[in-house]
């Protein structure tokens, strides 16, 4: 792009564009060169159905992908599984996320509570259920990449969801 000879102002009138004209033109160019994807616009309304007011939210408290960045550790991407930890009250969900191109496998463990079932919700995709084994372990394979939430039914009747996290 350097060295290109531009030909005068906006519309070739020879007058430099005003600030407002320039902003308007840039907005138009953004819409042409890098528009918001249609899928994202249509997903907005659909997301509302994912609201779960009765569930307790377990916050994301650790993410090895981000922790490594903050510690300036050059994480060997693709070799180590990513570790995510969610917590609420005394309940913890630890997950190992393995990536295979656009697919994700998750192995996790819920502790500090007894889960009877776990399901994985990826925004815009189907929900996948998993059984919970001894010591709260569960495995979910073949999830699509995208924002993920785990939804756990606890033995005491409560529902626990993890905070939305892109995997």
């Amino acid at each position, binding site marked *: *792009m350097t060295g*290109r*000879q*531009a*030909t*005068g*102002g*906006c519309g070739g009138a020879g*007058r*430099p*564009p005003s*600030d407002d004209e*320039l*902003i308007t*033109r*840039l*907005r138009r*160019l*953004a*819409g*042409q*060169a*890098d528009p*918001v*994807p249609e*899928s*994202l*616009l249509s*997903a*907005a*309304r659909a*997301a*509302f159905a*994912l*609201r779960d*007011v009765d569930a307790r939210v377990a916050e994301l408290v650790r*993410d090895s*992908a*981000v922790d490594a*960045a903050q510690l300036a550790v*050059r*994480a*060997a*991407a*693709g070799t180590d599984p*990513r570790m995510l930890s969610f917590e609420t009250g005394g309940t913890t969900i630890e997950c190992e*996320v393995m*990536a*295979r191109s656009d697919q994700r496998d998750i192995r996790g463990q819920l502790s500090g509570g007894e889960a009877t079932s776990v399901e994985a919700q990826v*925004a*815009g995709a189907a929900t996948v259920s998993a059984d919970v084994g001894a010591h709260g372990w569960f495995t979910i394979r073949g999830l699509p*990449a*995208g*924002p993920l*939430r785990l939804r756990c039914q606890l033995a005491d009747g409560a529902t626990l*969801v993890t*905070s*939305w*996290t*892109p995997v």
Partner: protein
Amino acid sequence: VVDDASNSKLVAAAAAGDEEAWSALVDRYTSLLWNQARQYRLTPADAADVVQTTRLRLLENLDRIADPERLPGWLATTARRECMRVSRRGDIPRPGDDFTAIPDDGPAPGERLLRDERDAALWAALATMGEPCQRLLRLLISDPPPSYAEAAQILNMKVGSIGPTRQRCLKTLRRLAGLDGSES
């Protein structure tokens, strides 16, 4: 009417289950969040995940947003954190693997889609600007654009310095793109 409602009203209505209010709230900031994510050169798929995750975080926190008039700042902070997260997930080693949320100096996103040479030059010139100007201008060209008060929140600047900074950045851009009349 919903389109002009304050964030406080929309957040309260959405928290009470009003889907229209939710849509209005989300539509208000989708372009802004998209521009922010793309500024960090995330792929379209990664940028879409950032925007979608940011929305879902909002949905999850509707009852807990302490000050809805600070929502733009909250969204921008959430999106910035998610930009970092998605850039480091997955199984594809990234060149350098040292994402630091600073715009790189590659071609501007979608530059090749602009047929008009002067448009392409202007779009490319924006991508060569320093981070403060790029952040401000990409924010202000969102559709709908944020108010100066919102822009100030998002950028951690004083409201009174948005106008002068915009003016200064546009002057630089005009020069970079050869639109300042000096070559005609």
